[in-house]
Structures are given as C-alpha cells and as structure tokens.
C-alpha cells in the first residue's frame, strides 16, 4: 500500500492544506498536488472524496483511501509511511502534542479561507463565552475566530480580541521555549500544526497593518517561525510569500467587512 500513488487535494491559501503537504515532505513521500482553484466553486473530486465536510485538504492514497481533516492526515502519514517519526515516542508526550495542536485549532488558528466560507454559508456564530458553571461551554471552537477578529476589527472591539489572542499565544510559545522546534531537535507534528503562525500570520499582519507577534514580546515563537520556514523539507511546500501577500491584499476589504459583521454588538 505504501507504494501506491499519493495525491493531495489542496488550496494555495490554506495553512491546513500545507499541513498535509508538510507531513509528506518530512517523510520524504512523493505526491501529486491537485489545487482547488476556487473554494466557492468546489471540484467534483473534492466533493466526492470529502462529502462530509467538503473541505481541503484531502489525502488520496491509492484508489480506495481518502483521508480528511488536516491533523488526521498528518497522523495517517506518520503511521502509513516509513521515515522520521512526526509524533514523539512517549505516550504522554504524544498526548501533549495532540493537546497543543487542538489548542491551536480551537483557540488561535488563523484561516481566512475557512472562516470566509463559514460566514457565507451562515454556519459561523460568535458565541459570547458563557462561563456558566457546570456547563460545558458551547461554541468553544469559536474561540479561534477571535484571532481573525483581532486582525480585522478596530478600536475597543479589536482590543478585546487582541488581549485574548496574546494570552493564548504566550501559552503556545511556552511549548517551544528552549527548543529548536516544538518537536525538539527535529520538526514534528506540533510544528506542522502551528505552521500558520510561521508563514500565514506575518502575511496577515502585513495586510491588516497590525503587529500582534513581535520579536520583543515573543522571542521564542519568532525564532521558531524562522527555523520552520527555512527548513529544507518544509520550504518546498510553503506557498510563495509574495503571492500569498498579493492574494490576501486583494481580499482585504472583504475580510474587514466580514469581521465587522461577525463581531458581537458592543455591550449596552
């Protein structure tokens, strides 16, 4: 099975798509990249292989295997192919890596692509964080939207989201302190999971004209970002920065308009 052809259905702008490619590059697995041209007009191939979520990335392995959800793909690649391990060996360390990857996706992820399609499909909802005792807080996954909102809103509203994001980023940074990569000496699962911060975040900051992650405030995260984006295997599957910048710049107005419609109304 490991000899069968591997394909990735991806999208240029998407950091989630990059995760799938990064895993394959790190393992040294050759693959064919099939880029979606427009996520508002999804290909038959994508819809056929990810009927449940209709999202990129999708990994196709041979004729019969389609794997969806970026982190599920990364673990699949780790288990199905030979090559340097992406997850650590120790069960407690593996649990920690999975925990922080989930933290990234729940609390801090930046993905304008995913957010855009959620808002236009009406499935996005900013839920006031209800810390009601005894109740699992609904909309926990919506916390990640705070990052997006921190980028594209202004004034008091922005300040609130920025505060939340900065706290979460500090927690994440703690995991790479004193290490070259989140995975230690080698790039691993958590580095791949955090890749949006290394490459996409600086682009968003430039387009938005905000500075959330500075080297002064986040020395370890910034150092890690340089290490990650200059890593040989990773470099090969990072989208060209200038092109990414151009594409996001072209959509800035729509990002701002969307953030305005998403931000909760100010307290009376």
């Amino acid at each position: 099975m490991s000899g069968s052809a591997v394909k990735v259905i991806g999208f240029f702008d998407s950091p989630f798509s990059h995760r799938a490619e990064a895993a394959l590059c790190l393992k040294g697995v050759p693959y064919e990249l099939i880029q979606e041209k427009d996520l508002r007009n999804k290909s038959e191939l994508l819809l056929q292989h990810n009927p449940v979520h209709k999202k990129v990335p999708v990994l196709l392995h041979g004729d019969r295997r389609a794997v969806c959800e970026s982190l599920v793909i990364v673990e699949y690649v780790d288990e199905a192919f030979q090559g340097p391990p992406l997850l650590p060996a120790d069960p407690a360390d593996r649990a920690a890596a999975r925990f922080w990857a989930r933290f990234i996706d729940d609390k801090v992820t930046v993905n304008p692509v995913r957010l855009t399609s959620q808002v236009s499909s009406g499935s996005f909802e900013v839920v006031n964080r209800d810390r009601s005792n005894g109740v699992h807080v609904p909309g926990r996954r919506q916390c990640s939207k705070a990052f997006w909102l921190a980028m594209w809103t202004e004034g008091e509203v922005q300040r609130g989201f920025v505060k939340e994001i900065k706290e979460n980023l500090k927690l994440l940074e703690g995991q790479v302190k004193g290490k070259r990569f989140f995975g230690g000496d080698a790039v691993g699962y958590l580095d791949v999971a955090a890749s949006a911060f290394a490459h996409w975040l600086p682009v968003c900051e430039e387009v938005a004209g905000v500075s959330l992650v500075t080297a002064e405030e986040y020395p370890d995260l910034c150092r890690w970002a340089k290490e990650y984006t200059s890593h040989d295997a990773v470099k090969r599957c990072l989208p060209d920065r200038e092109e990414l910048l151009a594409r996001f710049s072209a959509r800035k107005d729509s990002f701002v308009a969307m953030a305005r419609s998403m931000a909760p109304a100010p307290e009376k």
Partner: protein
Amino acid sequence: MAGEKKQGLQLLDFWVSPFGQRCRIALDEKGLSYEYLEQDLANKSELLLRANPVHKKIPVLLHAGRPVCESLIIVQYLDEAFPATPALLPAGDPYARAQARFWADYVDKKLYDCGTRLWKLKGDGHAQARTEMVEILRTLEGALGEGRFFGGEAFGFVDVALVPFTSWFLTYERFGDLSVEKECPKLAAWAKRCAERPSVAKNLYPPEKVYEFICGLKKRFGIE
C-alpha cells in the same frame, strides 16, 4: 498512602459529562482501575486548576501525577500507555485508524454544540439546530453502515466517542420534537447494543436524569 495513589490512575470528572464518560468507559473496557474524583465545577479545586491550567475543564486523567487533558486525547493515551489492554483504535491499520479519528472528530465538532443550540435557542435558531441535528444523526448512521459497531465487529474508538451522547438522545428528541428511532433506526439499534455492555451500562446516566439536568440549567439561566 499518597505515594500509592501517585502510581495509579485518577480521573477528574463531572457526573453528567459525556466527555468524562468517554474516559470512564474506555478505562472499564480496558480493565484499568482508577480513582474517580467528582469535581465541583462551580468551585473548581486546586487540583483541577493545576492539572488543566489552560482550559480548567474536566475530564483530566492523572497518571502517576502527570495530567492528560481532552477526552479523546485521554482515550488515545490509554491505548498507547497500556498496549497490553484491548485496543480501542484498530491496531496496525493506519487507514482504519484515520477513519476512526475522523469520525470521533466529527462527533466532537458537531454533536454537542448542535444539541446545546437545540435546548437553548428559540425561533429560527432552534429550527436550524433541529435540521442540523437530524443531518448529523443521519450522517453518523451512514458511517455506521451495516456494522455492529462503528469499527465493525469490535466496540472501539468511535463508539466510545459517541455512546455517552445516547443518554442525550431523549433530551434532543424532546427539545427537537424528533425521534431518533424514526430518523435513524440503525443508530437507535446501535445505541441499544452498546447499552448492553457493562462499561456503558455502568457509566451512563438514565436519559430522564440528563433531561432533568438540562431542564434545571434552563431554569437557572432563565431560558424558557
């Protein structure tokens, strides 16, 4: 005495939590003994705050004092830390494991949030939640296919992820004015099959008790 405790397993949990129940069921399926520590979520203990400083939530598993957080991460941890016990993720089959992770993730992403909207919201929000709930249940039934369990013949990872929510079906039915039996008979049959397992029977609360709990919450937060 304290030293003895530190070698073993402890679970910080809250009785009605379906996420906590996943861990209880997994521990029992694996024949692992543990100390259950009920948490007061209105008044969180030092132990909980130290064990899960990031989210301050249950469940948390403590293994020789080291915390593991997030229910599905705990279940995978138990598989990996205790390889001699019955595996919940299919061993040695990366694709089957990927499928299991995908569907457990689907349950996490969709079911609880939709259920909450179903009992909290009115009007359009409620109507949308009802439509979504039916779609979610039908999608899960599709994933179940013709198997006895989600993994096929053996009770596994996805079953553990979903089964605690079967106690919530009655609540969803009453607030959503729907019938799981009618919409998804295979899923309803799967729920009955799971309920026969000692690990499930022991750790799930009767559906009426869950419904009562939710009604209590609604009163407390003034949602009528």
